[in-house]
């Protein structure tokens, strides 16, 4: 198993190494919370294993971070990226055998969740492509609502980057139908528009 330079830490604070709440389980708990002996809340991520040793990344966390994690407002990587971080090894009985204080940035990338990966698949952004008319353009907040969506009576609120503003504005002014490509954010009923084109059959 990989090794990085860290500072040996007293692991008694994390014992018993038992989940308070399991957030992701597959052949046992893989991501969970743990309350330490100081009554502090920690987020724990199963990072790697070799033979009879499992390695976990342990970071202090807060109820606010956990809520955001469960809602899909932040990724697992972002929830783990904290100023204080420990690597803890456990034997196959689930008992800690050692911990060291490390810098999060020093942990090999393939031993951490992919950037942007959410806790559950249902929280992952979904690609979408919708055709409709732009309404309620807010140039300050860089957002608009897409209405008269094909095959639906629903509307979709989009946010977008400044480089898309001119195209959005012109389409809004011309009142033409547009095709918007974007990604959803399940937690907010909001989508991010990254491309826009006039519909072939417009207006």
């Amino acid at each position, binding site marked *: 198993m990989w090794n990085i330079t860290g500072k040996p830490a007293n692991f008694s604070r994390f014992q018993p190494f038992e989940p308070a709440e399991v957030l992701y389980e597959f*052949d046992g708990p*893989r991501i969970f919370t743990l309350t330490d002996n100081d009554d502090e809340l920690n987020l724990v991520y199963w990072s790697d294993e070799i033979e009879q040793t499992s390695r976990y990344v342990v970071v202090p966390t807060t109820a606010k971070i956990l809520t955001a994690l469960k809602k899909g407002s932040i990724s697992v990587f972002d929830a783990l990226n904290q100023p204080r971080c420990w690597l803890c090894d456990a034997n*196959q009985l689930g008992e800690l055998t050692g911990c060291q204080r490390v810098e999060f940035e020093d942990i090999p990338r*393939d031993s951490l969740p992919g950037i942007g990966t959410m*806790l559950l*698949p*249902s929280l992952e952004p979904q690609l979408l492509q919708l055709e409709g008319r732009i309404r309620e353009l807010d140039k300050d907040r860089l957002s608009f609502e897409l209405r008269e969506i094909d095959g639906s009576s629903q509307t979709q609120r989009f946010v977008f980057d400044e480089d898309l503003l001119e195209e959005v504005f012109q389409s809004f002014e011309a009142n033409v139908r547009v095709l918007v490509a974007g990604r959803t954010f399940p937690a907010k009923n909001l989508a991010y528009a990254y491309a826009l084109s006039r519909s072939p059959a417009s207006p």
Partner: protein
Amino acid sequence: MTHQFPTDWPSNSPPADTADAAGAVFRIVKSEPPTLKDLETHHETGKLPKAPACLRCGLSVFREIRDAEHQRRLIPKLGSLIAHADLQAGHGKTKRTDGKQPTHTTWWPYQNINRASLFSILKEEG
């Protein structure tokens, strides 16, 4: 042919509300082709002895490839390959053990089933 579960399993394993194995399942593995090591239960490896004895005898799988793809990004060290099998009644019993993961399923394989031979690696497009 009579199918049996290993005799060293606890009496409540698998639970009474399981169904005959059937349909597609997906699991992240490290080897191509998959080996038994990719498909060992905690009961076999001796890991996590304090976990529920019944679940330790089963193997976690997903019913949808989307969940396996997500897991590969979430926990890269579990493996980089997605293996697929079409389970049948002769392969054991299954039960949805989803909790927060919609298609998480536990599969209790019958004794003497060559688990690794049931799985094949899904090839990536492109």
